[in-house]
Structure formats: structure tokens, C-alpha cells
């Protein structure tokens, strides 16, 4: 059976095969591996997705689902060729304020979902930095998080119900858009973080949250990374629960200063804290944060004025641009540490940097222990490439050793498959992998879904 003929017969012009179209899908934001798919299918509905998974299953053709293609781990690169299933045209959104949810089709961007909710005085809290182009389906498949994670958690905390299509084309509903329902074991979680290896998420019903009355932003500058780490720990312990708690090391701050020309004071570490809540209470919390910063040797500045808040956030806002403008090659690490061990972790990360001698500006969502050391290198220098890869591995192993994890939000994809085994070993749980693979076999007996990813 000729796959392309079958696909075209069922889906007509939604099937792209011209090299000048399909070549555009060769890679994702990991931007290392390139592979041209056999064909790209642009899905406009669940029915389209179902047709593709039926034909692919019948012909044992690999299928890689793709949303915005902003994965940083190679998760959406069609490494085995096959069909690239582009779900971005499926982008319907429906907000139901009365019942407290938003329904989003797979291809709707995370930012658009949030925007729609805001029209009704609500918002959708998970906010990956890529939210303007990253899609809901993929954010669920990657269990994405964001800046507001310190208080509001990650994607999985917001799902009420899913519609998924599994290999063979069957359409399943998991749960209902209710805040409570019981159907036995929770299969929603099975698809969270599955990275397109089990099936295609076509629709999601997600919880929404009332917009906070007021937000105050606090900027803290420290003379040492350790002081900053202690302040973070203390803020967390005080029971304040900030919306956002970001940390940037000196190298990050310096890079932004150099690139942007902004007037940013010299500092060893910077933290940016947002607290939100009712008007009457929020400044009390902000003052508490300011005190903690002072107690730990830092200098604090706070504001609730939108323009000022923007200014306080400028360094964090500019960091990705500054790093990518300064260095040609960047490997973005995504490790997690127990918050109680952040100070020690930061010290160890610095040692790794000194050992290899490559720049590694480190910043991240310290409020939930999630750090992004950015390993910078010259991709045209084989020695630096090798060093960068070793650093990448060493940082991940450090996290594992310290009771943390190799990935907080970017996922496993291609780049962290082997490291996942190390993490499982560290908790004596290779059986986990075995079980997951068995589950995969049940859902996807022919192994068509995103082959080569996630499972070592």
C-alpha cells in the first residue's frame, strides 16, 4: 500500500509532498538534527488526525506530531522520516467561565488561550517563554512549565479532560470538563509528558483561574550567589508562595548589560520576585520579601507600576536574546534541584563551568528549583562541541546525584534519552522504563508514534 497515495486519497491537499514545503519541517528549536519527512499532513480536525493514524498504522509508517516546533530536545524532528503531522491548523478555543474551563484544540498557542481567558477576567497560568508559538497539545505532551510555575505549577496541574487519538485512529475521551470525576486510574497523566509517543492529543479542557487583583514585583541584587540562594530558600519557607521567583547569575546579568546597553548595576546574582493577591494584602507580602532580601545581604527594589515592573524584568526578558546574540551555539540545560539544595547546586555548577572553561550563564525558575544553565560554544570548533556535550551531561548527572531531576520542563526527546536511564538507576527503578514500554506496546503495537524518542 502506498502511504502517500492513501493519504492523498483521504486528505487531498492537506498532504504536502513538495520538497520546498516539507523541507521547512526538518528540525525544531533544538536545531541540531535534520531529517526531511516523507510527507507533511496538515490536520484541521480530529477526523483528519484519526485518518492519518489509521493509515500510518496500516502501513507501519512513523508519525511525528508537531505543534509549534519549539521543542528544545529534538522531540519534534522526524528522525525516522515518515509522516509529519502538523496540528497547528486545529486552533479553536472556547472559554466557559461559568464552569471554569477553557477548551483548546491541539494547535492553539498557549498565549492565545491565555489571551482569550483574559477577556473574561481569568487567565491560564502556565506560561512557557515560548508561549506565543508553542501549542497546547505539545505543552501537555511536554508537561511544559513557565515563569508562574513557582505558584501555579505546570501543565499537568491544569487539565480536566482530554480528547486523544491513538494509533489505528480510534478517538478517545478521557474524563470530562468537571473539577471532579472518577473513572478509575487517571489516564490523562499517561499522556502528559508522553512527547507524542503514545497518541495525539486533539483537544484539552483546562482549568482557568481568576486574574489576581494586584501584582507587585521585587528585584533583589546580591553580592554572592549563595546569599541569593539563601534568600530564595527563605522566601519559600516563609509561606509567601510567589507567583514568580527567577534567579540570574552574574554571567547572565553581564551578558544582558553588554548586549542591551541597559543601565544594570554590577551584581553577583539577581532575583526577580512577583507576588500577587488581593489589593490589601499584596504589599504586605512584598515588604516581607524585601525584608528577606535585606536580611540575606541583598538590595531590593519593589514596584506595582506597570512601566517600572517592565524595567525590573528587563534583564530576565532580554536573557535569551542576549545569549543567542553573543554565542552561536547554545545548549539550554533544564535541570531541577530540591529548593533546599539550590545554594549547593549553584556552587557545584560554577565548579563545572570552571573545569571546562566554556561560558555558562545560569538562570531559571528558582522558585521551583528549575535552573537553565546555558552552555555556550562554537559549533564550528569540534573541541568545544565535545566539551559542551560533556558539560551538558555532567550538569544533568549533578542534578540526579543531588536528588534532583534531569529535566523540569523541556523533556527528554532525543537529547536526554540516555541520561534518563541514569536517573532511573539512581532511584532503583529501571522497572519504570519497562512498564512504560509495555504500556506503549499496548497503545502503539507497531511503534509508529515518534520512534526514536524518549525511550532509551
Amino acid at each position, binding site marked *: 500500500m502506498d502511504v502517500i497515495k492513501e493519504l492523498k486519497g483521504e486528505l487531498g491537499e492537506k498532504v504536502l509532498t513538495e520538497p*520546498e514545503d516539507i*523541507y*521547512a519541517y*526538518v*528540525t*525544531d528549536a533544538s536545531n541540531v538534527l535534520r531529517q526531511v519527512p516523507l510527507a507533511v499532513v496538515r490536520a484541521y480536525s480530529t477526523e483528519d488526525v484519526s485518518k492519518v493514524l489509521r493509515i500510518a498504522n496500516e502501513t507501519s509508517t512513523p508519525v511525528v506530531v508537531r505543534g509549534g516546533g519549539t521543542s528544545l530536545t529534538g522531540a519534534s524532528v522526524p528522525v525516522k522520516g515518515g509522516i509529519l503531522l502538523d496540528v497547528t491548523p486545529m486552533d479553536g478555543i472556547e472559554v466557559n467561565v461559568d464552569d471554569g474551563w477553557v477548551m483548546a484544540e491541539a*494547535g492553539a498557542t498557549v498565549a492565545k488561550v491565555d489571551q482569550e481567558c483574559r477577556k473574561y477576567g481569568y487567565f491560564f497560568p502556565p506560561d512557557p517563554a515560548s508561549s506565543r508559538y508553542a501549542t497546547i497539545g505539545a505543552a501537555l505532551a511536554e508537561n511544559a512549565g513557565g515563569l508562574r510555575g513557582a505558584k501555579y505549577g505546570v501543565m499537568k496541574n491544569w487539565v480536566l479532560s482530554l480528547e486523544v487519538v491513538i494509533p489505528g485512529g480510534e478517538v478517545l475521551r478521557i474524563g470530562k470538563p468537571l473539577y471532579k470525576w472518577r473513572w478509575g486510574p487517571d489516564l490523562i497523566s499517561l499522556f502528559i509528558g508522553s512527547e507524542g509517543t503514545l497518541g495525539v492529543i486533539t483537544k484539552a479542557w483546562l482549568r482557568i483561574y481568576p486574574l489576581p487583583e494586584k501584582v507587585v514585583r521585587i528585584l533583589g541584587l546580591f553580592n554572592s550567589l549563595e546569599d541569593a540562594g539563601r534568600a530564595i530558600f527563605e522566601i519559600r519557607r516563609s509561606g509567601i508562595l510567589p507567583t514568580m521567583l527567577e534567579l540570574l547569575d552574574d554571567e547572565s546579568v553581564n551578558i544582558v548589560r553588554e548586549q542591551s546597553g541597559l543601565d544594570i548595576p554590577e551584581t553577583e546574582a539577581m532575583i526577580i520576585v512577583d507576588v500577587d493577591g488581593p489589593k490589601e494584602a499584596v504589599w504586605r507580602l512584598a515588604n516581607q520579601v524585601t525584608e528577606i532580601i535585606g536580611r540575606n545581604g541583598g538590595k531590593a527594589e519593589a514596584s506595582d507600576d506597570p512601566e517600572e515592573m517592565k524595567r525590573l524584568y528587563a534583564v530576565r526578558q532580554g536573557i535569551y536574546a542576549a545569549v543567542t546574540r553573543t554565542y552561536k551555539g547554545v545548549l539550554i540545560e533544564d535541570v531541577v534541584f530540591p529548593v533546599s539544595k539550590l545554594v549547593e547546586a549553584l556552587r557545584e555548577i560554577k565548579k563545572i563551568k570552571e573545569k571546562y572553561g566554556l561560558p555558562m550563564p545560569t538562570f531559571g525558575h528558582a522558585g521551583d528549583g528549575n535552573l537553565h544553565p546555558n552552555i555556550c560554544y562554537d559549533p564550528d570548533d569540534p573541541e568545544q562541541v565535545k566539551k559542551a556535550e560533556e558539560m551538558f551531561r555532567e550538569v544533568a548527572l549533578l542534578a540526579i546525584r543531588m536528588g534532583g531531576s534531569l529535566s523540569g520542563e523541556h523533556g527528554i526527546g532525543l537529547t536526554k534519552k540516555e541520561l534518563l536511564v541514569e536517573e532511573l538507576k539512581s532511584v532503583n527503578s529501571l522497572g519504570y522504563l519497562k512498564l512504560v514500554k509495555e504500556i506503549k506496546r499496548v497503545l502503539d503495537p507497531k511503534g509508529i508514534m515518534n520512534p526514536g524518542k524518549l525511550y532509551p
Partner: protein
Amino acid sequence: MVVPPVVLMASENTEREGDVLGLGPKERVRWAKGLDLPRGPVNGTIFYAGEVYPIMGYAEGAFRMMSRLKLDLNSMAKVAPLFKKLGIYRVVARASWSSLNSRYEKALKDAVYVLKKLDVKFGYLYEDEPPSGIALHTYGLLEDFKRYASEVAAKFRELGVSKIITLDPIAATAFKHYYPVFTEFNVKVEHFVQVVARRMAETGAKASLRRKVRVTYHDPCYLARVMGVVDEVRYVLSRLDGVELIEPERHGVNTGCSGDGGLELTQPELARKVSYERVKELAETGASLTLTSCPACIMMLRVGFDDLSIKMDVLDLASLVAEAFRNRLEFEGPQEVSFKEYKVLPDTLRWDLSNLGERLREYTDLCKKCGFCNAVCPTAQALDRLESRSARGRMTLINALVRGEPLSSEKVLDRLYSCVLCGSCSQTCPVGLHVQEIIVYGRAYAIMTGRV
């Protein structure tokens, strides 16, 4: 040849007659009849009409007729070499000419009227006015553009032109940003609204309309994003009594594209789709009149409003200012105002055409595939985020082409021609890549190395 027949035609017409329709200089100076503008520069200064305003009525007529008859320019040009010889557009344009041109001609007349009222001194070159040849740049015929630009530069020198005031932001961009890259060029260029705002501030000019009108303003990409001219427009409108300005969601340097940028000629159906997003946004302001400052934007907005059956008039800013000036104009004395020159795009790329491949490889290799550009790319949005016709996708395709992947230059060029050159991508790219200009150079590369 890998360029599509319409582009071939547009460029041949531009080279031969000075405008994409091939109407020629006689047609292009008609608007100035009876105005008694001094021939030649005055103190080195000219009012420059350019090759777009004077032919826009024909273009709009042709655009509407072609789509009404479901005619495809490319295939017509292919099967009718004779038509092509005659300049197919010219034929269609003439046949479909109606009162449409008066709107565009009037904008030029109104601009001249306003400038005179503000005591600005200038002359006009009539048939001697050299067209900017911007179409050659737009379509990536950069070798031709380079030659053409140096001829124009020489002509300005010969005629003693040292300053240009123009209503056409496309020509202004050409002279200000592209000419200096391709040739010796030191003529000063200002857009009409810059001159008007400055003179109004110097004199405290204040005017009022006879009517009260709620307007919205569509910032043209070339004027706002590329030239950084935003404040001037707001100031001028604030000095017109009877005008209430309601900004659309995307405005100023963050404006949205109305679907021109050359796309209206190469891929008119896509151009239309792009315009829909924009006209909906403009209609949402509740205004009854849309103002703008670009002839191609006027046409695409008019088409878009009509297609969606939205009742909305579209007028050149110059025409509303003239209307107010004609009604009542007073001078209150110097005003304290300053206009910011916004810079939101990376510096113009100054690339040598002899090693385009290397440059393109180097720059497209820097693309991180983050997709930020796609989030603001109007053609990506209009095509449900089709990657090959999105900003990021075009970067990927250019990279593949220069790497020597087995792609057809002609078909890659088709993807590159689907871009409206709005510059939103360049404004957004965290790496600071001037995606929009890279696409123009990509077009040039595809043409110069053409594999079919």
C-alpha cells in the same frame, strides 16, 4: 529563468517605463496638471511623486478585474507572449480604469496643497523624475536594482536635487535605506508627514474639519517600522479639530500588515487573506474612516473591506489634512514638541552580491528556530501557520538552498515571494537577524543561481 512571468513583466516594465504597469512618465505626471509647480528643484528640494501613487488607480482597477474574472496573471502571461510584449497589465489596467485613480492622484494634489500652506518650498521634476525602481529591490532583482539605482543617483546629481519630500513611504524607504547600500547616494529624504509635523509645530498650525469624524490610522510598515515615523502622524491628527483618533490594537511600530509589499502582484489571493486580519482589526475600533499613508496599503485595505462587506472609507492622511486646512487654518505660534525616530529593526544589511551564498549561509545558520518570528508573521497566520510560507520556514528554506539541498530555486522563490516584507520578523527575532532583508537577498540568490 526562475522568476514567475508577472515579476518578469513588472521588472521589464519598471526598467523600460519606470513603473510596474508600464504606463510610462506621461501618465505618471498627469496628477500635477494645473498645479503650476516650478520645474526642477527649488533650493535643491523636490516633491517626489514616485511610481506608485500615480498608477495605483490602474493597479486597483486591474487587481479587482483580474480577480472578478478569475484570471491568473502568471498563466496569462505564459500563454500570451504577445500580451506580454504589450505589457499585459497595461492592457488590463487601461481597460479597467475608472474613477479609481482620482483618489490616488488627489492624495498627491492634497499633499502639495498642504505643504504649500505650510510654506514649504519645493519644485517638481515632471517627466524627468526618475522612478525609484523599488520593485526591482522588492523582487530580489538586486543586480538590476544596483545598476538602476546608480543611474537614478546620477540623474539626481545632474539635476541638482539634494532633498526629496515624498508622500510615498516605499520610495522614501528605497532612497533612505537601500540606495546608500547599492550606490553613492546622499540626497536627504523625508516623508511628507515628517515635514508637515515639523512645520506645524514650528508655526503652531491648527485646523478644523467641517465635520466630526472618528478615524483610525493604519501605520504602513515602511513608514512606521522601517523609517520609525510614528509620533508625527499622531501630532498632525491632534492638531485637527473634529478628528477623534482611535488606535487599532496593533499600531505604531507594532503595526500589522495590510497585504501589499509586492504580494498583491505575485500572490494576490494570499495578499487578500492577509488584508482580512488587518481590516477586521481596524473595523473593531468603531471608526468610520481609516487613514493611512501608503498607496499600496490604501488599495489592499479597500479590497479587504469590500471583500468582507465592511462599510469603511479609506483615505490618505494627506487628504484629510488638506480637507481641514481648506476649511479653517490658524497659526498659534511655535509649539514645544519632539518626534522620536523609532529604531526597532536591525541595521540595514550591506551585503556584496558576489558572495551572497556565504552571507546567507552564515546568517541563516544563526537562526535558532525558536518560532518567535512566526508568531508575528502575517502570511503564516493567514495560511494557518503553514511553515514553508512563514518567516522561520523561509529562513530554513534559504539555508537549505545555499547548502545545496535538492530543491528547485523556482519553487523556493515562490515561497520567498509569499512574504509581504513587513519586517515584523526582524523586529521580533531574539538573535537580531534582519529576516526581512535576508529574504530579499534570498530571492536574489535564488534568481542568480537559478535551478529549475
